[in-house]
């Protein structure tokens, strides 16, 4: 097993790249937090929507993207580049690739900072960047991946440490998620339509969105925890066995949990149920990570008093534990019916982003700076101040959001004495949470203040030292036994056979037709029993196989990819095949007229979805307030879907035809003229700008390719139609003494808003309702909901 060391050579680590990423993360962290404090202030002070490009709808994507990709992204790269070189006992794969990765990533961030305020957006959360930038992100990510795997390839350490497992999972999964969710057809250099629409887009988006949290904000940081925490504590990791169990269960289960962002919506119920249950099952694996972090500190608790690094790590891991307990809780459909679309979710993500990511980053930077610049930390008291102000800031923020979310949720659910009307208007509930939105700014501001103190502290530290690249004598590894595992050894062995066998039977239980499903479940239980028996008898061969797997990075990567790909395949493929427009039996959306489409693209680019949902959930309070619950078919032609994830304003799914055009005009010009005390930004600039007529024909052509049933129209016809509708609206507005240009963005947006909620009821043909019957199982799985419906009808 031990590969003989033939010779010792000095190796200089590439620590320059670590320093670069670290500084970038510190700077962009401050930018992201500043943007956060600013947009949080806009919620109480609408006057802060100072200009068209400074509206909440445009800046909120800037805040989220900066926090995720610029701040945590750079932090993750710093941590990965530092620890991977040391865990592999070699320099990063290729210096050029490292540099391309660094500069490419910063360029992407700069491009994002320019395009997002300009209103160039794909309209999907954390996936707003326009397609040329998407391509750049994918390319740079591949550069990073190649660089990382080159490092593994030439490593001088036979076995892969647990931190590297998490890095591998991060790299392959983020690539998969990012590419699939950004598949789109361009209509111009700055605009594209995603290939998925409606419910499919919703599912893919939250498969991506949830796992951006999982594989961008969690797994890499867990890897960083596994390296830096035992280093700082100078204690052995609590349990290797726990690492194995929690790593594999985490990466396998996480990917299934996406639909919990769409609970009680028009998403098919079986997907909602999978989302909920996999989220509940995720609790234990997540806490496995927390336990391995916290219990590693056993015997080193005294350091908590003296070492700020340990303080930050402990708090970060504790916040991680709190956050991953809250997550499954919020995934329970009943809890979610109250919490969803409210500030509770906002508090939840910030306890993760500020508490877990922010404090892990701070701890790591305080640990790295003295080592990378060969000096001592400038001031421990300043670091302690940062810790306390940061902790208090997060707590204030999170508690304010809890109260706000629960209070607004309860207020929205209140009904009048006869139970036939809602008690509070949406604006009433908004006024009630205003003080809490204020506390949120203070909490966030305290965290930012701590961060700035860290900037000063680290700046002073850096100034007192000089950059050094660590040089180490390393025994060169003779690749005799490592990286020799073949396909057969990877897949044909007890652990994988037992896992895949059990999974296959479980899937049979979910998808087989009635009768066979229960048989499959019984087989699964029996199989699991046998597998456990077998494991008890031959556990040492299982352990030996795993030890060997750890010496083979490619098979390890392949198995990781298999583990993460299963959940996505099972949730997304049936949805794409079954839930398409031609299969919808219930209501189906009316296709947007050209002007309405132009208006919709403006709605998307202004980021209206950041505050307005278009999804009336199957819940009594939602239906009472907004009208009949949304059906799956009612947004099937929406590229992108706009179901939303937060209601700072009311739902708009059935806004069409509810108010006069003049109301919308006045409201968009100055929201407070129609809705006193509203916090919506004014959109007067829509009145002065013309909507984009030039690209409309291309856009409609692309949508036709994507399956939206537009009748054949040539370019002139499309423009004429748009203008005709514009003239109609402008003429109507004139009656109310309102003068608008018929080609203005204002008219387009009003046309779109008035279209919302319009649908047709397709005639159901007998042949259609029985589709898919008689096709053998693997080609046409039985969707659990349909099987159940058939049951009920009998």
């Amino acid at each position: 097993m031990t590969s003989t060391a033939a010779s010792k050579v000095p190796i200089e680590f590439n620590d320059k790249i670590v320093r670069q990423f670290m500084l970038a993360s510190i700077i962009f962290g401050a930018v992201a937090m500043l943007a956060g404090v600013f947009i949080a202030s806009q919620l109480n002070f609408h006057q802060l929507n100072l200009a068209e490009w400074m509206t909440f709808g445009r800046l909120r994507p800037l805040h989220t993207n900066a926090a995720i990709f610029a701040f945590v992204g750079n932090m993750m790269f710093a941590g990965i580049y530092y620890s991977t070189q040391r865990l592999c006992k070699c320099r990063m794969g290729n210096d050029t690739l490292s540099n391309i990765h660094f500069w490419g990533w910063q360029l992407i961030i700069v491009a994002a900072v320019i395009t997002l305020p300009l209103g160039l957006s794909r309209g999907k959360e954390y996936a707003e960047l326009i397609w040329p930038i998407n391509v750049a992100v994918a390319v740079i990510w591949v550069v990073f991946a190649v660089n990382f795997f080159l490092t593994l390839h030439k490593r001088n350490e036979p076995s892969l440490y647990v931190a590297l497992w998490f890095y591998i999972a991060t790299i392959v999964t983020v690539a998969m998620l990012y590419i699939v969710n950004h598949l789109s057809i361009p209509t111009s250099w700055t605009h594209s339509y995603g290939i998925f629409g409606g419910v499919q887009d919703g599912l893919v988006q939250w498969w991506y969105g949830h796992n951006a949290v999982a594989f961008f904000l969690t797994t890499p940081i867990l890897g960083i925890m596994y390296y830096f925490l035992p280093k700082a504590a100078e204690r052995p990791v609590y349990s290797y066995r726990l690492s194995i169990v929690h790593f594999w269960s985490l990466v396998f289960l996480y990917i299934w949990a996406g639909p919990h962002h769409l609970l009680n919506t028009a998403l098919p119920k079986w997907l909602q149920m999978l989302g909920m249950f996999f989220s509940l099952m995720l609790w234990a694996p997540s806490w496995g990570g927390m336990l391995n972090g916290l219990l590693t500190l056993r015997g080193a608790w005294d350091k908590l008093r003296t070492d700020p690094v340990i303080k930050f790590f402990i708090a970060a891991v504790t916040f991680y534990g709190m956050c991953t307990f809250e997550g499954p809780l919020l995934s329970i459909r009943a809890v979610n019916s109250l919490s969803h679309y409210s500030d509770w979710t906002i508090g939840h993500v910030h306890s993760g982003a500020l508490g877990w990511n922010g404090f892990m980053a701070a701890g790591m930077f305080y640990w790295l700076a003295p080592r990378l610049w060969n000096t001592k930390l400038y001031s421990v008291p300043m670091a302690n101040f940062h810790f306390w102000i940061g902790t208090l800031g997060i707590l204030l923020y999170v508690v304010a959001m809890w109260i706000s979310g629960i209070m607004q949720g309860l207020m929205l659910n209140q009904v009048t004495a006869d139970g036939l009307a809602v008690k509070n208007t949406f604006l009433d509930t908004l006024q009630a949470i205003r003080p809490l939105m204020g506390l949120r700014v203070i909490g966030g501001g305290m965290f930012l203040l701590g961060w700035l103190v860290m900037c000063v502290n680290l700046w002073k530290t850096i100034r007192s030292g000089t950059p050094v690249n660590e040089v180490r004598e390393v025994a060169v590894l003779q690749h005799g036994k490592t990286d020799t595992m073949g396909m057969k050894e990877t897949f044909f062995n007890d652990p994988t056979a037992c896992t895949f066998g059990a999974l296959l039977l479980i899937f049979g239980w979910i998808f087989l037709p009635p009768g066979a499903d229960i048989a499959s479940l019984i087989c699964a239980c029996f199989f699991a029993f046998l597998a456990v028996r077998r494991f008890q008898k031959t556990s040492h061969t299982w352990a030996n196989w795993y030890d060997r797997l750890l010496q083979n990075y490619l098979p390890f990567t392949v198995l990781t990819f298999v583990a993460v790909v299963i959940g996505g395949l099972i949730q997304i493929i049936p949805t794409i095949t079954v839930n398409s427009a031609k299969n919808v039996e219930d209501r189906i959306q009316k296709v947007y007229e050209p002007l309405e489409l132009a208006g919709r693209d403006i709605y998307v680019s202004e980021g209206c979805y950041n505050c307005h949902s278009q999804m009336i959930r199957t819940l009594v309070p939602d239906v009472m307030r907004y009208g009949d619950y949304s059906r799956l078919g009612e947004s099937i032609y929406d590229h992108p879907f706009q179901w939303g994830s937060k209601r700072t304003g009311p739902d708009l799914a059935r806004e069409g035809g509810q108010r006069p055009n003049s109301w919308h005009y006045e409201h968009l010009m100055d929201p407070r003229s129609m809705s006193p005390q509203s916090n919506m930004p004014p959109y007067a600039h829509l009145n002065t700008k013309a909507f984009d007529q030039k690209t409309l024909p291309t856009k409609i052509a692309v949508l036709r390719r994507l399956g939206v049933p537009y009748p054949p129209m040539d370019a002139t016809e499309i423009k004429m139609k748009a203008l005709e509708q514009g003239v109609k609206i402008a003429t109507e507005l004139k009656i109310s003494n309102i003068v608008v240009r018929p080609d203005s963005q204002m008219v387009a947006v009003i046309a779109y808003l008035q279209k919302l909620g319009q649908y047709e009821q397709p005639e159901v043909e007998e042949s259609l309702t029985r589709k898919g019957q008689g096709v053998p199982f693997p080609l046409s799985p039985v969707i659990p909901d349909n099987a159940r419906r058939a049951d009920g009808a009998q």
Partner: protein
Amino acid sequence: MDSKKPSSNNEPVLRDHVFDGIQEYDQKLPNWWLFTLYIAIVYFVIYWLCYYQLGIGSSDTVVMDKVIAEMQVARDKQMESITDEQLWALSRDPAAVEAGKATFMTPGMCVTCHGTDLSATLGGAKLPGLPLNDQEWKHGGKPTEIFKIVRKGSPDVTKGMAAWELVLGMKRVSEVVAFVLSHHKEGEPITQAVDTPPPAAPPAAK
């Protein structure tokens, strides 16, 4: 296996291999932790089995359709019981008128378009709504007719007033109507508005 045998049963196993100075214990998984995982899995299996295979519980849409239908029946029933006489009587009840006034004057509600004095003007400027303090009515001036417009909105809501029933509910709608009627007398002449182009009217945030 590169792991050290424990010297005693209580001491955790420390694995031999050292990664850049980091060592790993190989301890048993905490039982309570394992149980949370097992319980979550068992809960999933039982719940799914009950819902999908045994058909226990109704689907969301079935429940919702039932609730909505029941509500509609209750609303219709409430509606049947309202007559012109009752609304006139209500408009002479100070408590009801006061409550109606409060609703009417709530920012973002009726007052936005009909004005504080019901004249549909604000400081001389015309507001989107129609005046309610004169004897000219566009959609009928009988109490039940006014009541219907407040509930359901004007025939084409994109050009006129929005429907308020779901927001206000029966009780508050009748109070608002009582408040409006308190500016009128039973038996006063009602003129049909000349069919001027319909002006805009309220609703507020939902």
